[in-house]
């Protein structure tokens, strides 16, 4: 029993995988939620994520501290966000087009600066072994939870609370829903969106740093498999609700872990089909929750996709 837990390995591996894989989704989608709630879409988060992965890794290599790496990534993300927000304040600029341009820019820049850091290895972020009570290695592996996941979970709850209960949260929602009303209150929508995009960029970059500093835990040019873009879709899927984002990321991560988990218990045929599980699942849920008779609930009114 101690060396084999049979089919119990599958849900355990899915749980562990969900936690591992979902962490970057959580950060990027929470960041994008803040940005979109303020009425702007930043599609450039994929570029920010890759640049954050590079910056975090490089800083960790140089300083020896993964936490300084996270901090450096967040700063880089803020710069990307500010740049996006600054360009978008000009009239007739389309935030989606700028986002795509910035995505390419961020990835290119990351590959350019990241070349020397492909070889050296950086210290990893710590994990908390919640599975200490068990002698089963699979349990221990599944319950070894990285610190960023916990921070992300707390952040999701905090954001959900803040959108209802804090001045800043309400201001972001006002600006995101009606720029006219915001102006009548003496708020400058561009300024609010600038900061919201900067915070969104910072969170996306932290999501990237997680990739290079924890899982898979090294810097390569193929480090991202589109997490930055998928997270933007997750936000819509989660109806702009931070807790929804957390749940959606977890679901997505769990579905993504299905393929490897089946492989680990000896399924050799067709397990790679399960790699498509997250996408199939997303499609199914979208179809099931869509309704022809009502609008996308919770969509901020100023968003360029809903206008």
């Amino acid at each position, binding site marked *: 029993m101690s060396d084999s837990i049979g089919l119990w390995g599958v849900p355990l591996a899915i749980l562990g995988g969900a936690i591992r894989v979902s962490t970057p989704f959580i950060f990027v989608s929470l960041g994008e939620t803040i940005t979109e709630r303020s009425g702007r879409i930043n599609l450039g988060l994929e570029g920010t994520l890759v640049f954050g992965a590079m910056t975090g890794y490089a800083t960790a290599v140089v300083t020896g501290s993964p936490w300084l790496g996270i901090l450096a990534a967040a700063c880089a993300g803020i710069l990307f966000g500010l740049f996006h927000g600054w360009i978008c304040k000009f009239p007739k600029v389309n935030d989606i087009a700028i986002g795509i341009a910035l995505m390419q820019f961020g990835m290119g820049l990351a590959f350019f600066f990241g070349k020397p850091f492909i070889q050296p290895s950086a210290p990893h972020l710590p994990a908390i072994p919640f599975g200490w009570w068990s002698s089963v290695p699979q349990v221990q592996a599944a319950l070894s939870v990285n610190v960023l996941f916990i921070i992300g979970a707390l952040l999701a709850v905090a954001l959900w609370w803040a959108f209802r209960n804090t001045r800043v949260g*309400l201001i972001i929602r006002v600006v995101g829903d009606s720029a006219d009303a915001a102006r009548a209150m003496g708020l400058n929508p561009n300024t609010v969106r600038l900061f919201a995009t900067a915070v969104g960029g910072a969170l996306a970059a932290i999501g990237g740093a997680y990739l290079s500093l924890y899982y898979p835990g090294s810097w390569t040019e193929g480090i991202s498999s589109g997490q930055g873009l998928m997270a933007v879709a997750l936000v819509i899927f989660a109806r702009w609700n931070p807790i929804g984002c957390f749940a959606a990321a977890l679901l997505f991560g769990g579905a993504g872990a299905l393929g490897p988990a089946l492989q680990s218990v000896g399924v050799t045929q067709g397990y790679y089909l399960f790699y498509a599980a997250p996408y199939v699942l997303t499609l199914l849920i979208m179809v099931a929750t869509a309704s022809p008779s009502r609008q996308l609930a919770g969509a901020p009114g100023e968003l360029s996709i809903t206008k």
Partner: protein
Amino acid sequence: MSINEGSDSSLKTLRSAEAPRKPGAIGLEAAGMTMRFGSFTALDNVSIKVPAGSFHALLGENGAGKSTLVKCIMGFYHPTAGQIVIGGHEVAIDSPRDASALGLGMVYQHFTLVPSLTGAENLVISREHVPGVIDWSVERKALAAFMETMPFKLPLDVPVRSLAAGEKQKLEIVKQLYLGRNFLVLDEPTSVLTPGEASEVLGLVRGMTQRGEITVLMISHKFHEVTAFADEITVLRRGKLAGSGRVKDLTTRDMAGMMIGDVPLAALDSRLAVAPDAKPILSVKALSAPDRSGLKTIRIADLNVRSGEIVGIAGISGNGQKEFVEVLAGQRKKTAGDIRVKAAPYAATRGETRENNVRFIPEEPLQNACAPKMTVAENLAFRTFDVGQGGKPATWIDGRSIKKYAAHLVGAFKVKTASLASPISALSGGNVQRAVLARELTGEVDLLICSNPCFGLDFSAVAEIRARIMKARNAGAAVLLLSEDLDELLELSDRILVMSDGVLVYETPIATANVMTIGEHMAGHH
């Protein structure tokens, strides 16, 4: 904070907590206000004096410069010339923020509430000093105590987007009172209120002016309101001061004369008798549909509208009228029941609408009947652009004939627009309404469904629109008129029904209609 000692003290407490300004009414004087846009003079050397604690009415036609004057006072425009004096000191108002710092507040004709926020959130976030972390249990208590002092009840916990126009308007007024303004500009505040509610709101506001708590400048078109509540009036015509004076020295006729000059008002056609054998055009049976909250249902048991009659539906906003119109317009799905037009089942498809000559004048026409960013000409062509010569489907859009058609309608319905190619959202509310009316009333009309067709329109526009509806009726159209304006229903309808809580609860022919009885049924006493 003691908030249970009666209405006055709670208002004062709120005000002193929210605003560092001194409470109490302030006087405002604007002298020699001139505003030019390029070569166009919107406001020409207009002076107005509103003493502290007075209730002042600003009258004028569409485009007379009322909004321009008010926007200069509120800091949205920088006047070309003129001074503003508040409380004896000349002030510079460069932005709306300056205006609110001086204690000036405004209720706009276009709503400025944030649609996805709840009423409570809208109120709290509009305050000048919002705490970083909002303690909702405290805020809710304070709001509940504040709402106790208001003459009407509003749901503060649902998103504003799901409120009807009348409820939004009330919330706008409540918001300004909540913010404790010293000087309030009301831009046609009662357009969507029932007579009872309008008197309540204006009575409350009037009471506050008499106690010296606020000063009010109200843009209005309703003479009976002006006569009943205002102390003084100022009348503008084509950007110039056309007259002013104390209300008690003036008759309605004097005011109308100042307002419109010598232009005659459109008169209603005399009412032709409804033929006894007139066929029902619209018949609704056992209809049910969910209301906007999804919690209640509207149920229309049996409603017939015959050719050549106007059936008016009265009701306080938010009692299901909006949903009923949405079902008839095909914007909302019915859950059960039967809608027939000319005895054939009707689902509001484009084909059925066209075949039966069904026309719609919804409320908030810019949102519900227009594509705001498309041009005036394109919007006017929505009923006709896909029909070619001889009624066949058109393959190519004929831009030239669309323009010609639009130019004709704009002329016939006196739509004021800079150009046929400007976006329809650039037009004033009255002109959007006129444009929609032009589109809907042109050609053959067998069934006309209108919802609050005169919301926010001025005197002569209202007279003209009512005349056109009556004309359509006399030409044989069946008209279903949903309105929150009882005067309008009494003027136009052949039968009046009352809708309350999603159900038609009362019906009376116009000959025996009694305002008090209708009002009681509207208020839910039946």
